[in-house]
């Protein structure tokens, strides 16, 4: 039966060409848009995780409430002891200490007077502790445009665009002006060891990266850190695992009312990322639904036209004694075969374009000159295992639905009038 139908599809181009083209286009678009949205959202989440939220993050309750303001006066103290507990309790999470701080970077002239300055967004990470994995996690080596990673105290990396704005070169000195965790004014002069470009406008235009030990000295927070950031050994964010770990940790501190008690937040509860994660899950489904609906309407119409064209064929088959149900089922089976052919071609084309967009992407750097959002400047699609089958849902479903609707006409034919209709 399938062989018979396949022959019919291949030999009668009028029967199959238009539906296959429509399905191919629909499936291609479904895959491309799903891959693109998954890629862009995935990059945003991944970049947020690496640079800011981690997969889970521990802060003091008071700090977590106002964390956008980088309130280091509310930071965690006694973090080494807390880290030991976290490493024991959650051994499959890699924990690192981080301090984020804001302030002003001032560039001196030859007499020590201000030559230029700009607001800085500071990040202190465990650069000198090689086992922290921070240099690899933040892709610092590959993001270096000039110079090298800091190797000793008093050295700093700054954003490449920030360096250009302040006319700084490797080896130049800058003075950080800010506030300690106690609110005192603090000054510290750093030597620029290198310039980094992360592809995030926010970082490239205002970041200074220093070692955690320098920040602890500068901000008067020995054994203190704003954030303890955790990364799963799996390397990707796992929402359920993050939720379980956070719940287990937070339950331990639930009885205390201390505003400086630690609290753990999973990635999805930070930086409004819950919405993004939900988008990633629901957008592909939304595209599939839209394309199933739109393509079903088109294929219904195509099926009706085909039904009219094959009016005589169905009449003769009925006159020869073939049951209406059998004709209807063979039509649906034919639709399944056309749907599969269209979906295979559409999936192949869609994956090819998605892969091209994954490699090359769309550069939106020019449109993001003033954004403070942590997102990549090149929007890339991502080929995921799901894309290999997601196109078959609209491809098959729309074709079958369209044909089932148009095929209902078969049941309206009356056998008694067939010969009159066929004029035989």
């Amino acid at each position: 039966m399938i062989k018979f139908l396949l022959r019919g599809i291949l030999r009668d181009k009028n029967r199959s060409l238009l539906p296959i083209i429509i399905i191919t286009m629909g499936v291609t678009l479904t895959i491309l848009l799903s891959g693109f949205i998954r890629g862009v959202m995935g990059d945003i989440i991944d970049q947020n995780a690496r640079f800011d939220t981690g997969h889970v993050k521990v802060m003091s309750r008071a700090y977590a409430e106002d964390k956008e303001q980088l309130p280091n006066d509310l930071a965690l103290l006694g973090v080494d002891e807390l880290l030991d507990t976290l490493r024991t309790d959650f051994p499959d999470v890699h924990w690192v200490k981080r301090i984020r701080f804001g302030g002003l970077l001032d560039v001196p002239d030859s007499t020590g007077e201000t030559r230029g300055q700009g607001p800085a967004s500071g990040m202190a990470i465990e650069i000198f502790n090689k086992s922290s994995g921070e240099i690899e996690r933040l892709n610092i080596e590959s993001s270096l445009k000039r110079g090298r990673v800091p190797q000793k105290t008093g050295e700093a990396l700054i954003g490449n665009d920030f360096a250009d704005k302040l006319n700084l070169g490797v080896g130049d000195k800058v003075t950080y002006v800010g506030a300690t965790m106690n609110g005192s004014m603090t000054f510290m002069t750093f030597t620029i060891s290198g310039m980094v470009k992360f592809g995030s406008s926010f970082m490239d235009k205002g970041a200074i990266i220093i070692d955690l030990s320098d920040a602890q000295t500068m901000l008067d927070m020995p054994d203190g850190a704003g954030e303890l950031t955790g990364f799963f050994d799996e390397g990707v964010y796992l929402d359920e695992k993050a939720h379980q770990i956070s719940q287990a940790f937070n339950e331990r501190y639930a009885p205390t009312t201390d505003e400086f008690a630690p609290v753990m937040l999973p990635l999805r509860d930070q930086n409004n990322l819950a919405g993004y994660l939900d988008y990633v899950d629901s957008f592909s489904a939304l595209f599939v639904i839209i394309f199933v609906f739109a393509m079903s309407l088109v294929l219904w119409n195509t099926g009706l036209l085909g039904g009219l064209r094959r009016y005589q064929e169905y009449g003769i088959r009925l006159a020869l004694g073939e049951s209406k149900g059998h004709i209807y089922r063979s039509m649906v089976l034919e639709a399944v075969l056309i749907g599969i052919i269209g979906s295979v071609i559409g999936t192949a084309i869609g994956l090819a374009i998605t892969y091209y967009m994954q490699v090359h992407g769309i550069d939106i750097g020019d449109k993001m000159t003033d954004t403070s959002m942590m997102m990549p400047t090149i929007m890339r699609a991502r080929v995921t295992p799901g894309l290999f089958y997601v196109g078959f849902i609209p491809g098959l479903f729309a074709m079958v639905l369209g044909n089932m609707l148009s095929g209902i006409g078969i049941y309206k034919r009356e056998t008694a009038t067939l010969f009159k209709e066929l004029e035989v």
Partner: protein
Amino acid sequence: MNTLSLITFIISLFALPQGTPDADAILKKVDANMTSKTLISTSEMVIYGRRSTRTITAKGYAEGHEKSFTEYLSPEREKGTKMLKIKDRLWIYSPSTDRTIQLSGHMLRQSVMGSDLSYEDMMENCKMTEIYHAKIAGEETIDGRETWILELTAKVDNATYEKRKTWIDQKRYVPLKEELFAKSGQLLKKVTLSGIKQYGNRWYPTRMNYKDMLKEGKGTDFVVTELEFDADIPEYIFTKASLKK
């Protein structure tokens, strides 16, 4: 003006208490108390944080409203830090880095040492009559003292606060309370002034509590421990060279 408006205007004139001076005259007397040709002061700034309370002492010199110099005396972390303000520019000297850093523009609105005072608040010594239009909005008694409530609206573009509401002691002509507003009308700070003392023929508040309404906590106390009005201040004090001395 129609008849109804005219009647309302005449009634409102009679409604004001007899003997009330006009708002500008009140403000002029306040300026006479609060501003001076020069001022040398020693002060303590008590900053109430969520974890701890810090006290910072400083010695300040001011000449008119355009020049001021502050040297921090304690605690150790702040000791030796100096600030010089000339017109709208501010230089900060950090002894730990031996750097002089210039601040200007919006940076002057940042908090000083984590307190509820901005650099502009700290170095304010302007005559109110030169910056604000005043009108009397009512009367109120604060801690047993009769006050006029003045509403001040900036008449210059570069005023730190676009609007102020200030409660002026009717006998001593010093403010006892102030509310400071942004151009949008948002209340930015509340200032409570107390410890009014007489210095020669002027009255001056020696204790001020600044409360930044955009921050949590109970604000910052600014306590003046020593005051010297119209003393001679050597000109070199207001030069950048004095920062490194």
